[in-house]
């Protein structure tokens, strides 16, 4: 298996008041990563170097980030990463073209010399060598092997959660969305290993297709006709589908027991485009407790239990707690933040006092000045 099909972003995430939406793949994670980094690094680490990436909307920042794919060894003279953006076809108006990219990507997949295809979205952070589930997939002779984790669905994540009901030998007997909260279930990772011919048949009549549709509609309708098996992943798994899950899982990264195996598991590292920022500078009055901080920051105030992305400045006397500050946020002197999420290029002026809550972090949108 050396082919991956990424269904990147057919459900943009809504943040805060809903005015900001972002392709899930381009969502920031863990200080200087984006969710797509996990997908592409896992593929690179599994020897998958032919990647078809189906694009839906708002894919500019995603393409900028991936570039030629060099950070994941995907800049290749043959293979590598190929984007499938929507474009107008023939006489049809632009708004009516969303089925085009998937069908074009399937032509790419069909031509690849590989019997199996990894189908995945780019909404999750985990560290896995796909050759492990592939071994089981091949040995079992399954048409589809769906990857899952044992988790209690988070209340905040239910609308984007898919659960599997399992029968003998890990056969999937049922697929349901919005599973009940409060008990451990078999939660879909949004990743599948599929026999190529089966995949081409399954998607032959599909227009736009994200993994939720792939699970709940396409695959659910084929459970009897196809041999659909499951494979349990036991490592750290984070699925980001909302502001609340963004906050929850980014804060997970303060725990070394979760962070360290996620970023380096058996030598498998998660890669991203490296920037030229200086290391972060801590001033002589800096007080930092239990925080992760990316490069290029200038920290002169107090930071506790925070995830700080690149090029953030925290001025003297500012106090930031339990917050996530994304790239190029500036916190003026004397400002106090608690349970806040800033998007990139936000300015919090001096002496401002912003307070959210553990269950409801307050989101400040791109480029906003408070």
């Amino acid at each position: 298996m050396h082919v991956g099909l990424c269904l990147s972003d057919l459900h943009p995430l809504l943040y805060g008041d809903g005015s900001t939406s972002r392709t899930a793949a381009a969502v920031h994670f863990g200080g200087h990563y984006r969710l797509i980094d996990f997908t592409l690094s896992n593929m690179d680490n599994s020897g998958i170097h032919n990647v078809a990436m189906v694009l839906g909307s708002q894919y500019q920042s995603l393409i900028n980030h991936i570039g030629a794919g060099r950070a994941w060894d995907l800049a290749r003279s043959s293979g590598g990463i190929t984007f499938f953006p929507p474009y107008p076809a023939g006489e049809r108006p632009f708004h009516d073209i969303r089925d085009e990219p998937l069908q074009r990507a399937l032509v790419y997949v069909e031509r690849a010399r590989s019997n199996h295809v990894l189908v995945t979205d780019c909404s999750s952070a985990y560290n896995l060598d796909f050759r492990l589930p592939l071994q089981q997939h091949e040995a079992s002779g399954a048409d589809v092997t769906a990857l899952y984790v044992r988790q209690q669905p988070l209340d905040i994540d239910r609308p984007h959660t898919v659960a599997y009901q399992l029968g003998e030998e890990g056969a999937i007997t049922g697929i349901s969305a919005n599973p009940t909260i409060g008990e451990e279930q078999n939660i879909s990772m949004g990743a599948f290993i599929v026999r190529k011919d089966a995949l081409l048949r399954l998607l032959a009549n599909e227009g736009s297709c994200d993994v939720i549709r792939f699970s709940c509609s396409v695959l659910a309708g084929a459970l009897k006709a196809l041999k659909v098996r499951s494979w349990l992943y036991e490592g750290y798994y984070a699925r980001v589908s909302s502001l609340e899950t963004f906050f929850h899982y980014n804060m997970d990264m303060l725990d070394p027991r979760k962070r360290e195996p996620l970023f380096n598991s058996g030598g498998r590292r998660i890669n991203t485009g490296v920037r030229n920022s200086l290391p972060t500078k801590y001033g002589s009055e800096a007080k930092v407790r239990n925080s992760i901080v990316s490069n290029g920051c200038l920290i002169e105030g107090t930071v506790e239990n925070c995830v700080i992305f690149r090029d953030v400045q925290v001025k003297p006397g500012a106090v930031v707690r339990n917050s996530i500050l994304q790239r190029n946020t500036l916190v003026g002197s004397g400002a106090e933040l608690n349970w806040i999420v800033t998007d990139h290029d936000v300015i919090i002026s001096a002496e401002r006092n912003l307070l959210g809550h553990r269950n409801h972090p307050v989101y400040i949108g791109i480029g906003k000045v408070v």
Partner: protein
Amino acid sequence: MITPFSQKECVAMLLAGGRGTRLEDLTAHVAKPAVAFGGRYRLVDFTLSNCVLSGIDTIGVLTQYLPLFLHDYIGKGQPWNLDLMSGGVFLLPPYEGSSNSDWYSGSANAVYQNRHFIESYNPTYVLVLAGDHIYKMDYSAMLNYHKEVKADCTIAVIEVPLEEASRYGIMRVNTSDRITRFDEKPAKPKSNLASMGIYIFNWQVLKEHLNQDNTEDSSAHDFGRNIIPAILAAKHRMFAYRFQGYWRDVGTLESLWEGNMDILEDPSLGRPDWPIMTRGRNRPPHHIVGEVTNSLVASGCSIRGKVENSVLASGATVEEGAVVRNSILMADSLVQQGATVEYSILDERSVVNAGTTIGTPRVAGTPPTVVPGIWVS
């Protein structure tokens, strides 16, 4: 480099073959230009970035001493945008020739042995650089000056305190900055205009003198000691180009430490107006549980102890109860629980054992303690 070659107005030759013996253990496994600096750079980043930002995209890197890591680091030059179809960065170690084969016997000999590389780009000018200085400089401004004064050779100079002048190549100039005398490391300097080891030559003039120098058995085949005096003696037009700004030769352990502390005081070297580019490593953000003040910390570090006035490169770890002061921790170095590190340089992948004390408070004029790194098992 695929023939036919494109012409380049100016080709840079970067001298990167020396051992840098004054850096002691830090160059036991890598050439000096590959020594780490400022938490995420290596010395050669500064010269390569300056070239690229000055519009010079054809660079020969002359390597000899322990080139493996340096070659691997520079590679095809992608981090500096030097992986080009026309020009780019070329690693030039000594080679076996059809008639004669030899190690580089001096800086001038290294360029002489690669004269065919230079010729292949048919340049008007050749810029000769050292690969181990910390500075930001627009070589195109120097080249414009070189053309304006119709020089055959231009040397970048900086004013140094007279008492330090005997460490440098020292020039005397007339009122229009034409060089009248050049003394390499004079015992009794008569001027404080020091050579920065940055030369622009008209290629035809340099070529002629390299050829001449090659025939002289008594020559050390060195730019400062042989080529510059010979060009001056031949009455060619040689000018000083005065550089204003930060420049530091980090060729000793103490100056390397001081250079790192300069970056800590003024991190302007990383600002976007003249970005120093580097082959970065992918590591997660650093995690701080302990205390950090007045320090630079790169990605991948884990700090549970106390860090003051220090520079930590990617992946450095300071365990619980450990104290690090006034020190430089290179990549993946480890200070175990309860250890104390004072005025020291921890080389890459070095380990300070739990509970031990390394280094003593700084006394100016004495070098920092070096903890050797682990390069190959």
